[in-house]
């Protein structure tokens, strides 16, 4: 009753992998757009260093020659384009980054990248993955921790940046320090510094602290400084969250 395993089942496994990329969407007139980009880079130099960037050309709809100069222009600014989004075209010149199909905003889940060139099986798999969003968490690396636990107090002048998920601080966060997290922020000591949660566009993120003395609280870009805060919320255990695009700070009863 023993059979040799059929050859067909010993196939190569193709798996989808998702990652978050930043999207740049140039608008006409291009020179003005580049100018404002330069200003932005001037304010936060090194922001794009080593980050995957996708170029969304659906608004601009340029010609092929224009794309080449645009990619070169961005290259001069240290921005390397990983892929191009352009409806209606399946492939560009081989010297340009590959075309990206069906990308989603990170807020609606993770981006799925289908490498449509040369590997049809994988592309097919990726299509499946997109059809069933419930499958996506399995595609994450199992050993990557989604939470950063900080066991020491965060000192004045220190900055904690965590782009993968929540940050838990067991001690206090000193004034003059900051925590920046893609997910939520939990502080079990006194929060005296700045806390920014959901910075990569995650409006459901929250900030929790045992004692609120914060200089600034922000969720998904909406912020509240110490001066704007209700005096009754200071020194209390609070949580900060977004409600209809306004930042609410509520005490724990």
């Amino acid at each position, binding site marked *: 009753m023993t059979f040799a395993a059929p050859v067909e089942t010993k196939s190569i496994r193709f798996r989808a992998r998702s990652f978050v990329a930043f999207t740049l969407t140039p608008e006409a007139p291009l020179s003005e757009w580049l100018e404002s980009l330069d200003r932005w880079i001037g304010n936060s130099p090194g922001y794009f260093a080593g980050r995957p960037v996708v170029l969304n050309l659906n608004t601009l709809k340029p010609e092929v020659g224009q794309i080449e100069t645009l990619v070169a222009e961005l290259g001069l600014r240290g921005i390397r384009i990983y892929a191009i989004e352009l409806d209606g075209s399946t492939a560009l010149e081989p010297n340009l980054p590959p075309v990206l199909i069906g990308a989603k905003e990170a807020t609606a889940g993770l981006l799925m990248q289908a490498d449509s060139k040369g590997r049809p099986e994988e592309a097919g798999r990726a299509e499946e993955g997109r059809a069933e969003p419930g499958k996506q968490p399995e595609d994450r690396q199992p050993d990557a921790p989604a939470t950063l636990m900080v066991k020491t107090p965060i*000192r004045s002048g220190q900055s904690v940046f965590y782009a993968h998920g929540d940050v838990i601080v067991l001690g*206090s966060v*000193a004034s*003059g320090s900051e925590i920046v997290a893609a997910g939520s922020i939990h502080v079990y000591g006194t929060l005296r510094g700045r806390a920014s949660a959901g910075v990569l566009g995650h409006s459901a993120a929250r900030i929790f602290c045992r004692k609120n003395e914060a200089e600034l609280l922000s969720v998904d870009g909406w912020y509240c400084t110490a001066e704007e805060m209700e005096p009754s919320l200071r020194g209390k255990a609070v949580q900060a969250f977004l409600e209809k695009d306004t930042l609410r700070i509520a005490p724990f009863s």
Partner: protein
Amino acid sequence: MGKVVVVTSGKGGVGKTTSTAALGAAVARTGKKVALVDFDVGLRNLDLIMGAERRVVFDLVNVIQGTAKLSQALIRDKRVETLFLLPASQTRDKDALTEEGVGEVIDKLRSVFDYVFCDSPAGIERGAQLAMRFADEAVIVTNPEVSSVRDSDRIIGLLDARTVKAERGEQIAKHVLVTRYDAARAARGEMLSIDDVLEILSTPLLGIIPESQDVLKASNLGSPVTLSDPTNSAARAYIEAAKRLEGEELPVVVPFERKGFLDRLFGRRAA
């Protein structure tokens, strides 16, 4: 092998040099061999407070640059046999210190002395970072006021990141020494309370030095307060702090104001 203790602070004028001299003298009085090293190149002060300013021939920069031997530059204290001072240079600029040079000098001192106290310049610049670089322990001197505590917090962060011990993955032992504590003003809420300071810094307390005219008087006389008048309250607080530094378990008593009958009647007020 001796222990290297850096006395540091973020803000200037909190009493680092006074504390270095007082703690060093207190430890040396117990018979331990102690070296005090002034890292404040360009602004030397420790020799003044130790009353040795006229005996300075060679200094730390000379030793590091190889123009003098360590034994030539070390000044022995006239009052306590086991107390030595390595002064800073006032004429050289502060870039004269190199990391390798400082490391070599500290290693030599460590092999001869039981305790090496490094008096750090204020701030977070290179001089302060070199002073803490090779330390095993740190005494963070702070006043009970917000700006001083904030800057101390910054320094503690640097101690956990930029010292050789921290880079090896070990913990550098840290102690907070609160100086110029005025019990009357603390009671009126004009100063941060000790609890607030410790809560913000979350670092163990080494001692509380009360604000005292005796400290200033002793400094001007060129004598550490623990030698000139060991019975006054500030000197006693320093001596107890030195004992804690040596590992003795002593409870820290927060000084409170003793009010006499007349004081209570008229309500003494600080200017």
